[in-house]
Structure formats: structure tokens, C-alpha cells
């Protein structure tokens, strides 16, 4: 019997790199040779990770991949946490790629639905972020990864800066398993400001024709916060943050949660809560947090990614943010998601639909937006054991071995921006599962993990319910004049209020008439700049005054 080789993968990688020796100078390939590079080192059928993060996009490499000859490179199995750019899907139309494993596809949700329906694309799985990252190390180990860096030195050391995001978790999965690591660089420098990824892990660097795409996705102009959102924010602060003594939090990036950020220094202060709640955050550096940071509410923030315009402010607040010696933030989405699962007292999110049982989804007809991170953040890992007051406050009294629970809060107005009810008997996601032939109904956050729902009507303390019938009644009680809400009656509501399962604003001491925009710590973008001592630099589209 012939002696088995145990280095076949390594040998294959060595051969691939040898095949491009004519265009390789050290680790560097010229911009104009990028297409030849990809056609040489990517084999048809390979598993390829293309870095499309929530924010940062390896846009030069994705455009280059879309330009390769489908005769030479085809049927790739793409693995992407975020499908954002047109060419991320174009490669399926041209046959370069065939199968996709992904997490989030919000910016391409219509086309991805079409491609699944007509068979242009096969879907492996729609993952949550952590499930996708974890499988890069188990059964989705990549052959080639295509990532983006700000600066690269001559040894291939990478500086990925504030938007490091997914780069470490992607690169590591290939670098130690004979995958090929290809990096697009905004800039080649003699010395990187700091080493985010060691050059040892990098095989090929290509200078990009233009800097990678980066969008300010999480900037919310305080001007657009409504009084209804302010009312709900006040209710959440009293009825959840204060009640459960919440210390550690992640929340979403909508206007509901922007309202809470802007209410802490004003309404929270009036309630005497400063120093008592939410000192520690896992959240992107949203500009609306600036007043809460400046007034001493927020002690620490770790972030999944950066936010355009916040760089200089963050550089001057290293006591708050995770900042390198060079003065720029370091983010890491994998660690952030892990913190969401295992370190935080509470997650607060929003959604497009909630069914009568309390399941919620952002998937609506004809749009398959995927999951992203919310299902990780908005679930309760059952193996957790925490001693924090918030976790313990959800522990049942009558069971000596009972466990606490992570607070998972959904904040929604009873009707959406399209004037359609948010509370429905059945989620559109159930139909979408059938249409797209998915293994699971694309539910974002399951009822069993949802501990509270906040609407403009009140708060439902779902964790206190002890049957599905009671859970449904609690949801009906705060669902307003939606068809689900109309099933509630005054007798049922009185009973639920008496037992503390539902609280209306008056039960929480929140006066509807006080929910005014003047209560926000900042009224507009200019106020945020002032709070930041001029350190925050809003992107052009948020500058109405200049």
C-alpha cells in the first residue's frame, strides 16, 4: 500500500502560490493583476469567504471576483456574513458561484429571494452570526478568504482599525488550515499604526483601486425621534432598566433605542438612576450615546464595528472605548456577539412583526433579509449562570434549582410605518419558509426567549406568564387596535395589571404628557457635536447646517 500523504492540503496551497510566482512580488500582487490572481488561486467549487461585514465591504475584491471568467472559475460555494453589494449576487447569475451560506442580506433582500425562488442560487443555511463564524472552523472551512484592510506594511501585517469587525475570525479560519488569505489594502505603508492581523497569516496583498466601502449605518439624527418613541423609552427606563437593575446591555440601532440613549441624561437623571443602571455596554459607537457618555452614565463600551464620524471622539475617550496604542478603536464582531450571549443582562431590539404567541421576525413577503446578530443577542443561552440582580430577578420563586434568564426586550409601535399592524396572528415568515423552501421558519427572536414587549400602550412582562394562553393575553393587552389587540377586554386587562403581568404608563408613574422632544438630551446633530466638544464629525449627509 502506498504511503499516505498527510500534507495534501499544504502541498496544494504551495502549488497554487507557486503558480502565481510571475505576478507575485513578495506577498504583493499589482492592482491590475488582481483578476489573474483570483483566476489562478480559486478552483471551481472552492469554499470562498468574501468579507462582507455589517459595515466594511471588501469591495475591490468582490468586484474583481465578479469579473473573473466563469469558464475558469465557477460553482463557488460562497460564505458571507453580510450580502450587501450588487455583485455579491451578480456572481450567482453568471455562474461564478452556486451556493451561499450567509447571515444577513437586508440590502439585497429582494434579489436574494428571487434567486432562491428561481434556482439561480442554492442556500446552504441562513445563519446567525455566531453560527456562521463557528462553522468556519468545523464544516465550512474555507479554501480562500478575501478580506479588506486599511493599511498593510511590507511584511503583510494588517491594520484594520476601527472597523476590524469580522476580519480576525475569517482570517484565522483559513490561515491555520491551509486556506489562502488574500487581502485588499487601502494603502501600503512602511509601518502600520498597529498590527491587527500578523503578516504571518497573510498570503497575498493587493492594493485596491479605491478604499473599501464603509457606510455610516447606525447614525440616527435626534431630530427624527418621535414623541411616541420618547414615551416608550420612558416606560422602558422605568419598567425594565430600573425595575430589573440592569447593568450590562446591548440594544438595537433604531430610533426607539436612540430615544433611550438620549433620555438617560435627562429623564434618567430626574429619576435618580445615574450610577445605578447600565454602566457597561456592548454596542456600536452610536453618536446618540455621546450625551450619556459625557454626562457620566456610560463607563465602558465594546463594539462590533465602528461608525463613520466617531473616530476622533473615540480616540479622545479611551477610558470608555476599546482603543489601541495608536489611538483608534478596535472592534470585533465575533467577541461582541459572544458578549451578547454570555455577558449581558439585557438585549433590547425592534422588529417588523410579532405573532400572537410572541415570536418575531423581520422577514416579510418577497424579502429575505436573513438574521444578522439579533437572534444571538436576543436569545437566552440556557447554559448561563449569572449572579447579577437582573438575571436573578427573572428566576422563579418556587423552584430551588430554577435558573434566571437574560432579559430580551422587543420595543415596537403597534402599527408599522406602512400603517399595517405589527401584531399579527401569523408571521409572513411562515409563508416565506414555504416559498423559499427553508428548513426553518425565519423567526428572528422566539417567543420563549422574549421576556418583555414594550409598545406605546404598555409593557407585557412575558416572563411572568405561566401558560401560552396567559402569554397571548398579555400580548393582546398591549397590542392596541390591531386585530390581535382587539381581542383584549377591560376585565382581562385589569386582572393582568393587578398581577403585574402588564403595566400601563400610569402604573409605572410615566405621564404621557411629559413625553416631549424637549426631554431629549440632544435635539439634533449639531447638539451631538456640541456635546462631543467638537470631536464628533458627522458624515455629510447628516449635516443639514453646513
Amino acid at each position, binding site marked *: 500500500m502506498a504511503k499516505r500523504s498527510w500534507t495534501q492540503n499544504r502541498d496544494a496551497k504551495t502549488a497554487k502560490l507557486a503558480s502565481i510566482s510571475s505576478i507575485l512580488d513578495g506577498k504583493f500582487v499589482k492592482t491590475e493583476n488582481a483578476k489573474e490572481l483570483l483566476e489562478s488561486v480559486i478552483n471551481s467549487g472552492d469554499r470562498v469567504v468574501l468579507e462582507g461585514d455589517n459595515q466594511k465591504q471588501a469591495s475591490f475584491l468582490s468586484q474583481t471576483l465578479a469579473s473573473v471568467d466563469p469558464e475558469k472559475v465557477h460553482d463557488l460555494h460562497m460564505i458571507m456574513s453580510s450580502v450587501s453589494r450588487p455583485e455579491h449576487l451578480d456572481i450567482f*447569475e453568471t455562474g461564478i458561484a452556486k451556493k451561499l451560506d450567509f447571515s444577513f442580506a437586508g*440590502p*439585497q433582500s*429582494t434579489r436574494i429571494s*428571487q434567486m432562491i425562488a428561481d434556482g439561480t442560487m442554492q442556500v446552504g443555511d441562513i445563519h446567525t452570526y455566531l453560527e456562521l463564524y463557528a462553522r468556519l472552523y468545523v464544516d465550512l472551512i474555507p479554501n480562500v478568504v478575501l478580506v479588506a484592510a486599511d493599511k498593510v506594511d511590507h511584511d503583510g501585517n494588517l491594520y484594520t482599525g476601527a472597523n476590524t469587525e469580522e476580519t480576525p475570525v475569517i482570517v484565522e479560519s483559513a490561515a491555520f488550515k491551509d486556506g489562502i488569505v488574500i487581502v485588499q489594502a487601502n494603502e501600503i505603508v512602511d509601518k502600520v499604526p498597529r498590527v491587527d492581523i500578523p503578516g504571518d497569516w497573510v498570503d497575498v496583498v493587493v492594493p485596491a483601486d479605491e478604499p473599501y466601502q464603509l457606510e455610516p449605518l447606525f447614525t440616527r439624527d435626534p431630530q427624527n425621534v418621535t414623541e411616541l418613541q420618547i414615551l416608550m423609552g420612558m416606560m422602558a427606563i422605568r419598567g425594565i432598566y430600573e425595575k430589573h437593575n440592569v447593568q450590562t446591555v446591548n440594544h438595537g440601532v433604531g430610533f426607539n433605542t436612540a430615544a433611550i440613549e438620549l433620555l438617560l441624561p435627562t429623564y434618567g437623571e430626574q429619576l435618580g438612576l445615574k450610577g445605578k443602571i447600565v454602566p457597561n455596554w456592548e454596542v456600536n459607537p452610536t453618536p446618540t450615546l455621546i450625551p450619556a457618555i459625557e454626562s457620566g452614565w456610560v463607563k465602558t463600551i465594546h463594539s462590533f464595528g465602528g461608525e463613520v464620524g466617531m473616530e476622533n471622539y473615540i480616540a479622545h475617550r479611551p477610558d470608555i472605548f476599546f482603543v489601541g496604542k495608536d489611538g483608534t478603536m478596535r472592534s470585533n464582531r465575533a467577541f461582541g456577539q459572544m458578549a451578547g450571549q454570555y455577558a449581558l443582562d439585557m438585549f433590547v431590539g425592534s422588529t417588523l412583526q410579532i405573532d400572537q404567541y410572541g415570536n418575531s421576525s423581520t422577514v416579510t413577503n*418577497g424579502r429575505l433579509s436573513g438574521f444578522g446578530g439579533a437572534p444571538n443577542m436576543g436569545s437566552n443561552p440556557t447554559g448561563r449562570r449569572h449572579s447579577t440582580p437582573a438575571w436573578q430577578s427573572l428566576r422563579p420563586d418556587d423552584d430551588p434549582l430554577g435558573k434566571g434568564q437574560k432579559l430580551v426586550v422587543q420595543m415596537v409601535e403597534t402599527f408599522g410605518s406602512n400603517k399595517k399592524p405589527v401584531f399579527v396572528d401569523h408571521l409572513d415568515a411562515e409563508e416565506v419558509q414555504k416559498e423559499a423552501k427553508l428548513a426553518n421558519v425565519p423567526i428572528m427572536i422566539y417567543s420563549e426567549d422574549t421576556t418583555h414587549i414594550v409598545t406605546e400602550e404598555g409593557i407585557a412582562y412575558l416572563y411572568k406568564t405561566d401558560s401560552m394562553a396567559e402569554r397571548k393575553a398579555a400580548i393582546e393587552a398591549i397590542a392596541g387596535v390591531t386585530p390581535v389587540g382587539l381581542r383584549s377586554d377591560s376585565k382581562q386587562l385589569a386582572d393582568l395589571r393587578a398581577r403585574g403581568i402588564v403595566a400601563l404608563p400610569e402604573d409605572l408613574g410615566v405621564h404621557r404628557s411629559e413625553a416631549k422632544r424637549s426631554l431629549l438630551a440632544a435635539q439634533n446633530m449639531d447638539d451631538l457635536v456640541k456635546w462631543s466638544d467638537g470631536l464628533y464629525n458627522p458624515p455629510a449627509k447628516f449635516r443639514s447646517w453646513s
Partner: protein
Amino acid sequence: MLKDVPAELFQKVKDLTGIELTDNDKAYQDSVQIQLGILILQLFNIRQLKQRGFKPDAVAGHSLGIFAAGVASGSIDEDDAIKIVYLRSEKMQESYPTGYGMGAIVGLTRREVNTLVKKINEETQPVFTSNQNSELQTVISGSIVGINKVLDLAKSNGAQKAVLLKVPVPSHSPLMQSVADVLEKALADVLINDPNCIYLANYNGHAVRKSAGIKYDMINNLVHPVYWDTMMDVAKEMGIDTSLELQPGQTFTRLVKSKFSDFRTITMNNMNLDDIEFLLNKWKRG
């Protein structure tokens, strides 16, 4: 409507179809006159834009509009577009002399409208869910009897508006199959090229880059709903952020503006060419 359109285009229509176009409201009661009139107006618009050097990244036509979209994307030439539109409008006119039409429902989702249509649709009173102009603006098509029943149901189910449209034909429904059959034969000999930009198809809302998808749309779009809302979603996902509406109206600019408030829009109906050129160049510079 056609006062700026060169006489040569009128003559072209006459040579190719024998139709003498008359530019007044009375003549436009006739659906062959109005369809050919709108087509040559749009062909003129396309020439004007071409002359100034503007090329679209994507084209989207609504029903009749797909022929101008086809010309603008280089898929079909002017003469063939005129001949096909003439045939199409004539056959449409002949297909259902009385008792058929279309209705519009505002305020219900497509799924809600589907449920109502299913309750009413039967052989004696056919009615179908048709064009999706926006998320909450759905057209129904079929027999007037069936349409009126669905409109009544829509009103009692919370629609803000449910009205019969002044359209004498059950367009964009399976009832138009006979017209599609005629168009299939006629288009068999017509050269359709691959478009030189993205073509957004009526019948399924997809981004099309090959001639086959365009040909299918030109033959069959009358049998299918116009998925306008989906076409706009796909346009945005393809990176489009600016729209330019050919004459005569501004219906589609209104639709796109209410869907994507950050879209930059131009309507040729109320802007002169110099202003259009100025704006397009300014936006291109960023």
C-alpha cells in the same frame, strides 16, 4: 401632448402602420391613437437624452412603457417598437369590447387583495390580482362584475380607496392570452438584442441582461401583473439612486419618491433639457 415631437416621427408611424396620429383629447379616446402617441413621445424623449450623451444604467417600463425601455436599452429599434405597439394596441382593443376592465385598491397588501379576489373569481365573473404599483397599491383586472364585487369587499375590509379605473381592457391578467399569442408570432421575426444596461422586467420584477427575458416580457407582459414595486426594489439593490421619467406624466416619479425618499428624481414633463443636463452632471460629480 405631441407638439414638440418632430413630424418625421408622425410620418414614420403613418408609413409603418397607416395610422394618422391626431394630437387632441378626442383622438386619444381611441386606444391605438393614445398608445402610439405616447410611444412616439417617449421615442422623442430618448433621442433628446441620447443627443446630450446620457446613457441609463437601468431601464424600467410600465406596461406600454416597456417598448420605450426596450429602445432606450438598445434592445429593439424604433420601427419594430412602433409596429409591435400598433399590433398590441389593436388586439387589445378588439379583445374585450364590453364588460371588462381594471380597478385599483389602496391600503391593502397584495396578500389581502389576493384573499378577496379568490373569494370572487369564478368563470362567470373572472377577476385577478394584477399590477403591484406600490406596497399598498394593487390593481385588479377582469370582468366589471367581478371587479366591483372585489372593490366592495376591499372597502369593507379597510381599504382607503377602491375604484374602477377608466381602462376598457382586463390588462395584465390571464384573459389577455390571445393577444400574447398574436405578439408571439409577430415578435418571432423581430431582432431583439441583449440590452446595453439592466432591463427591469414587468412579469417577474427581475433584473434582465439577456434578450430572451426582454422578448418574453414584450410578448407576455399583458398576461402577467406588472411587478412595478418589486422592479423598484431591485433597481435600488442594483445601486440605482436616480430616476428620470419620460413624458407624458409624473405618476412613476411620485411612486418612487414615496417609496425611496432619498431618490433623486427628474420628470421630463416639467423640466427642460438644459436643467436636466445640469442636474444629471451635478449629481454625477457628487
